[in-house]
């Protein structure tokens, strides 16, 4: 049986960037998201395949991660998690309350160890969703969010100790040690991952496609939209998911993926450590370009300017 945690799933990623409209156009015209709400210079974008009201929120402003939103099953879980975090000295932005965003809900916000804003919420209004058709080159849902940190061990331990995440697998480098931890909060192999980088920033956000054919067609569509594919196509060993990474207009890395592994029995799951210098460990096919310094540098992204600063919305 999957372990029951107070955080049930990854809900959404909120970002700010100076070219919000260009970013929004990219996601709606090419990436396959739909605009579900707009207020002033903030836009909420969702996938048609998910009942979650939205998967990303974009705000006009200096480039930063505004927040990472997680879901909880009940108000009791929200309240209990909040109380735990208070007792552990976590810096709370606001206590549990009815949320002001258009989809409502009840939740709280806090800073993680590096100063990213975390939101935990429940009771928000779900939207109408549909089964994505065969060959439809649009995402089903947000798969995972990956963050860069300059202190991998401490950031990873914070998510384990405070939000009850577990490590599913780790990428290592013979000279640099542990490089990346894949973290789960439910049966999905990872809902977040944490990468050792030069600074705190967004590494990438990943969207799940219906299947191989849809993943392939989506990648072709994004290439024709003029976006650069920085890594892929390939298949990860950690997570067993296919990958194709692109750079979006704000300079963030976005991924189409499919077939992410589910860990149904946590008791029998043994996390592996994969040596990143063995190409086959990052890419089962061994045909994607090696995880070179250039690829890594692309995913360092710009320094997150939002650390320990609560977003305005």
């Amino acid at each position: 049986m999957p372990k029951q945690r107070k955080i049930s799933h990854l809900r959404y990623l909120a970002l700010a960037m100076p070219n919000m409209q260009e970013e929004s156009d990219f996601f709606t015209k090419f990436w396959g998201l739909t605009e579900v709400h707009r207020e002033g210079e903030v836009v909420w974008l969702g996938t048609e395949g998910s009942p979650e009201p939205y998967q990303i929120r974009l705000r006009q402003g200096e480039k930063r991660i505004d927040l990472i939103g997680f879901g909880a099953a009940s108000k009791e879980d929200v309240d209990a998690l909040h109380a735990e975090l208070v007792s552990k000295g976590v810096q709370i932005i606001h206590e549990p309350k009815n949320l002001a965003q258009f989809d409502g809900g009840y939740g709280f916000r806090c800073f993680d160890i590096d100063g990213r804003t975390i939101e935990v919420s429940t009771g928000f209004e779900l939207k109408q969703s549909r089964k994505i058709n065969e060959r439809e080159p649009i995402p089903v849902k947000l798969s995972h969010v990956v963050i860069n940190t300059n202190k991998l061990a401490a950031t990873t331990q914070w998510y384990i100790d405070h939000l009850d995440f577990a490590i599913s697998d780790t990428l290592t480098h013979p000279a640099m040690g542990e490089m990346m931890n894949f973290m789960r909060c439910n049966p999905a192999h990872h809902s977040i991952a944490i990468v050792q980088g030069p600074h705190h920033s967004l590494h990438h956000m990943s969207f799940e496609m219906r299947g191989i054919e849809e993943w392939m067609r989506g990648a072709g569509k994004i290439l024709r939209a003029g976006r650069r594919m920085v890594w892929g196509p390939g298949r990860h060993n950690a997570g067993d998911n296919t990958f194709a990474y692109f750079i979006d207009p704000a300079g963030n890395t976005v991924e189409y993926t499919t077939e992410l592994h589910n860990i149904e029995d946590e008791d029998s799951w043994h996390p592996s450590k994969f040596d990143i210098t063995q190409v086959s460990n990052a890419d089962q096919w061994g045909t994607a370009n090696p995880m070179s310094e250039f690829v890594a540098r692309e995913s360092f992204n710009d320094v997150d300017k939002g650390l320990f600063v609560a977003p305005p919305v």
Partner: protein
Amino acid sequence: MRIHLAANHLGYELGRQLEEWLSQSGHETIWHGADFLDEGDDYPIFSARVGQAVIDDEDRGENVKGIVFGGDGSGEVIAVNKVKGARATFGHSAKQVELARREADADVLVIGAIHHDLATAKELIAAFLSTSFGDALEYARRIINVAEYETSGTIEGWLIEG
């Protein structure tokens, strides 16, 4: 299924017969060629129109294919494949068309009227429309590789840098 069709003057008669056959079979047909037999008309514009229409519909998630009729058909294959994203195959045999669908996700079929009569053209089209993409990772990877080369001039980013 929506099927975009076109022909130059050499494929016109066969193309129009098969357009009618496809319509009667329940498909939505859209003709991109001349409205009448125009002796000496050229294939490039018709071929490109079909390729672009198929890609536009694919990007919208439509269930769509294209079929172009020519004399030999070679020029049409080349012309369609100049459209970014288009994957045209020459119709040689039903078996070959099945493989083109399954492994290369061919989305436009080109039939040479000097090579095939009405009956064999129907066999090629039936194979083309009834065979699904094989949905295998290795096929998908190669197709993305081609799309990357087509759009950025490289495959895997750097491996074929000159």
